Structure formats: structure tokens, C-alpha cells
């Protein structure tokens, strides 16, 4: 067969450009086309859509769902699902703002405790899925309600403000070419880069895919599938904590009613629109980033052209069912 000679030594510096090429040729082309079509549609409907100011607003709106969707992607890649994303984030947000505003805890420890709370929920989800071996759907439906209840109990249905400036850092903006970007958007992109690297360039990433693809085969090759699953839910919890931090920075208050309805479905919609299969083992985070942007563009565009919020729910509902149907049909052809 092949008779290529083995090059003496390959450094990281020849690998990096190759990695870039491969990233660009990733199977996220379909979602990208969908994004461009969506943007074209709204820019024809209203002049305001393509304005730099509006596009930077879209990015800020994408920021929170985008970070949640990283965790959701990991979970869905293992053939699981996490319904607790939105309420876990909401609870994390209440923990960090209440500690900072009402309990006089310094900003950074308050922030870390809020994030740790979300990590704890991730570990609870992961522990129930791996040790007790419950289906992810039921586990996260349970933790959804637990986090929801705790959000209202702990907050006593009060909002928390004004927040110390450290909690608002990721909401601050800087300007490039007339468009405002928040540091939160930068953080989101960094997190996507890390997730892309972990999933596509490390053994851990291969194991995540294998666990979702054929768990028994993964186990037989010696992969500790339980540890991979537990790790995935824990990391997902971490992303919800970071999303809580970004939400606080954007809204500038701790709100018990924040992030409980739209974020849940939006994170799943982003993952599925991004081409990740609900059956596990297939998908990319680059696709998810595009999917999250599609969701953000839809919400923003529908608002711009004057569609009432309740109809936006209608559209997102239809959108996610369409995307899942495409996934189902593709899956049926493959097997």
C-alpha cells in the first residue's frame, strides 16, 4: 500500500496550520449556510439588522446561550440530554449575586461560589447518570425542578443589585471598527476554542464521541466510560456557572426569574441546529457556535421586524422540531 517515508521530526509549528485547515473543512458547512440564509432574510426585511450596533447586540445575546450550549453539546455527544441548564444557571446567578449584595461576600469569592454551585449540580447529574444509572432525561428533569425551587427559596423572590464592579467585568465593552464587543463575547470564543481542541485533538475527546456512539464498544476497548460521562456532566456544570457569570454581567442584577424558560430550549436548539445528533457520537462545537448564532439571529430579527415574543416561542419550537427531524432522518439512513 503506501510507501511514504517517515519524516524525522514534526514540531507543533507545522501542525498548527494543518489544524486550522482541518477546522475550516469541518462538517459545520450546512449550519453555516443556514446562518447566512437567516441573516440574508432579516437584512432584506429590515435595514437595522446589519448595522454594526445591532450585530454586536446579537453577539451579546448569543453569549449566554452560546456558553450553555458548549456544556449541552458535550452531554448530547454522549447520547444524553441536559434539561437543567437554564435553572442551574439561574440558581448559580442567584448564589453569586446574593452573596455579593446581601451577604457582603467579596466579589471574586462570591463569583467562584456561584460557579462551584453549578459544578456541583453537574456532578449531581453525572453521579446519578453513572452511579445510579438513571436516564439523563429523568435526572435532569429532576434537577431542573430542584434548581428552580432553590432559586426562588434562596432569593426569596427578590432581585439583587447594585452589583460590585467585578461582577460586571464581562459586560464591559471595547470597540473594534465601530462595533462594540463585550469581554464576555471574547470569553465565549475562548471557551469554544478550548472545547474544540479538547474534543477534536485529544484522546479525551475521542472517548466522549465513542461513549455516545457505542458505549459497549468503548467499554470493551478499556475506556472508563463512567468516568468520561461523569466528567462530561461536571464540565457541563462548569459551563453553566460561567454562563451565569456572563448573564449577571449583561443584566447587571441577580434576577430569580432570569434564564428559566428560553435558555433551556435555546441551548438544545443551538446544539441540534449546529448539526450535533441527539443520538450521540456525532457533532462539533463549531457547529454549536453557529447554531447558537442562528438562534440569536432569529430572536433578534423577529424582534426587529415586530414579531411578538410569544410568536418567537412558536418559531423556536418549530425550529427545534425541524432540526431534530432532519437529524432523525439522517440517522435512519446511516444505520
Amino acid at each position, binding site marked *: 500500500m503506501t510507501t511514504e517515508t517517515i519524516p524525522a521530526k514534526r514540531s*507543533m509549528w507545522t*501542525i498548527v496550520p494543518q489544524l486550522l485547515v482541518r477546522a475550516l473543512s469541518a462538517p459545520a458547512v450546512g449550519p453555516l449556510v443556514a446562518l447566512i440564509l437567516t441573516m440574508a432574510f432579516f437584512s432584506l426585511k429590515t435595514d437595522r439588522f446589519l448595522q454594526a450596533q445591532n450585530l454586536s447586540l446579537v453577539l451579546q445575546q448569543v453569549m449566554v446561550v452560546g456558553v450553555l450550549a458548549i456544556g449541552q453539546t458535550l452531554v448530547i455527544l454522549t447520547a444524553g440530554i441536559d434539561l437543567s441548564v437554564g435553572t442551574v444557571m439561574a440558581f448559580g446567578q442567584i448564589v453569586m449575586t446574593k452573596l455579593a449584595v446581601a451577604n457582603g461576600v467579596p466579589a471574586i469569592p462570591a463569583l467562584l461560589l456561584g460557579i462551584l454551585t453549578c459544578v456541583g449540580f453537574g456532578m449531581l447529574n453525572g453521579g446519578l447518570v453513572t452511579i445510579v444509572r438513571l436516564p439523563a432525561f429523568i435526572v435532569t428533569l429532576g434537577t431542573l425542578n430542584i434548581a428552580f425551587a432553590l432559586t426562588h427559596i434562596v432569593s426569596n423572590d427578590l432581585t439583587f443589585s447594585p452589583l460590585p464592579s467585578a461582577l460586571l467585568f464581562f459586560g464591559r465593552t471595547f470597540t473594534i471598527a465601530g462595533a462594540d464587543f463585550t469581554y464576555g463575547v471574547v470569553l465565549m470564543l475562548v471557551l469554544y476554542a478550548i472545547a474544540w481542541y479538547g474534543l477534536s485533538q485529544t484522546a479525551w475527546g475521542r472517548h466522549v464521541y465513542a461513549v455516545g456512539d457505542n458505549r459497549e464498544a468503548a467499554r470493551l*476497548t478499556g475506556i472508563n466510560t463512567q468516568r468520561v460521562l461523569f466528567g462530561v456532566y461536571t464540565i457541563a456544570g462548569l459551563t453553566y456557572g460561567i454562563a451565569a457569570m456572563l448573564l449577571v454581567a449583561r443584566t447587571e442584577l441577580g434576577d430569580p426569574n432570569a434564564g428559566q424558560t428560553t435558555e433551556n430550549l435555546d441551548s438544545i436548539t443551538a446544539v441540534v441546529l449546529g448539526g450535533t445528533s441527539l443520538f450521540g457520537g456525532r457533532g462539533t462545537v463549531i457547529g454549536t457556535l453557529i447554531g447558537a448564532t442562528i438562534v440569536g439571529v432569529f430572536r433578534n430579527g423577529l424582534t426587529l421586524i415586530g414579531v411578538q415574543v410569544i410568536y418567537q416561542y412558536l418559531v423556536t419550537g418549530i425550529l427545534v422540531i425541524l432540526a431534530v427531524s432532519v437529524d432523525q432522518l439522517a440517522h435512519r439512513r446511516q444505520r
Partner: protein
Amino acid sequence: MSTPTPILQARGIVKRFGHVVALNGADFDLNPGEITAIIGDNGAGKSTLIKTLSGAIQPDDGEILLDGEHVRFRSPLDARRVGIETVYQDLAVAPSLDIAENIFLGRELQYRGSIGRLFRTLDKRMMRREASRHFSELRIGIPSVGQAVENLSGGQRQGVAVARASAWGRRLVIMDEPTAALGVKETRQVLDLILRVRERGLPVILISHDMPHVFELADRIQIMRLGKRVAVVTPQTHSMSEAVAIMTGATPGELERVLGKDEG
């Protein structure tokens, strides 16, 4: 018949599941460079025996010797660590990963440099090169090792599983009904592949229900009945119908008779 030192020996293996005695003092021998088939009726203890040899279950009594040394497998991982690989009938591959990734699943190669180690970067090129080397050695026809396994036929997928087992199996490979899920043509491909694994000097334990295949491939055939080895025959000394007669108990096996004399 010359008797070289067996690479794998099992002596007096006993395994009970509640009141059911699945293995009742079963023996087994595998010689270097040979294909040894295990046949037996349903419930004769074939799969229980094979699971004790691959580490999937732990025997209640008896001993396993690998190259003359006692070994004890607490899990399939233990068996794999000493170079025993198993191919399962149900195509144990990850379809969405590519061929090279499947070959190296759980044993991925990372870049050796300090940066590669720090970031745990996969050396995908090295894995692909190694994988295609295994495939060319086994003469498995696949377009590219970078192809996703889901695009392969059932026979090619099992080819991936066999290539993985023979790539990592330093001592021996266990094939548990490797063609049970395949069509006629694909079965042929996998049978040829098993012969090529032996050509490379790797001994094979083959479990199959298909008598013609067993008689075509095996150097030795171990016949099991009621949780014991009752005979070891070769395709040269016994016909298929004679083997079946021993299997069903119509004719007593040679070892059975010896055992009977000892006990009586």
C-alpha cells in the same frame, strides 16, 4: 501428534451460576501459531469458558496458565494487558469515528514533544500511518483509514475489529462468533482474515457454530459437553459427523473415556 508447549492452558475450570454448573472442571490448550476452535452444543460451556479466558468472568475454581505462568484476570482489561485481545460477534466498533481512531480507541498516541505532552495533542498522522500498516499487513482492502467506520460494509467493520485485535494482541486473539452477524460473502472475507492472522504467527481461539468453517480453519478442535472438554480432534483425524456425534454425546469423547476409567 507432537505436543509443543501450549501458550495458553486452562486446568479444571469450574464456574457456577447459582445452582447451574456452567463449567465442571473444563480444560483447554492453545498451541503457538495454531487456530483452536471450541465447539459444543448450547449450554455446553463454550462461551463461559471463553469469558474466563478473556477475563469477562472469574472462575470459581481452576487455573489459567499463560506461557506456563499462572495468571488471574479480574477484568477484560487484565487480559488485554498481557496481550489477549477479543473480537466480538456484534461489531464492537464506534461507527462515527474513523478507522484509525477505532484501531487506537483507548490507546491513543500523543505527540512526544513537551508541548504535545502538555496539551495532550493526538498524533493523528502517526495513528493513521500505523493503522494503514496493520491493514496492509492483513491485506484488508479499505480505501482510507481516515474514513468513518459507518461508511464500511459489515465485513469491513469486522475487519477493523480483527485488525485492532491483531494489532494489540501480542499473545493471542479470541474470536467469539466473529461471522455470526455477517452475510455469506462478508463471512468469507473474515474467514480469510483469520487465516492471515495465524500466518502472522498469532494463535487464535475460534468459537463458531458453523461446522464447515471450523473444519476449514482450525488446526485443533476442542469439543465440549456438559461443562467439560470431552475430546480434542483435528480435521484430519475426525469427520464433521464424528465431531457432532461426540458433541451430542452419541459417541463418547476420548478424554471422557479416560476420565470414566479413572473415576470408575
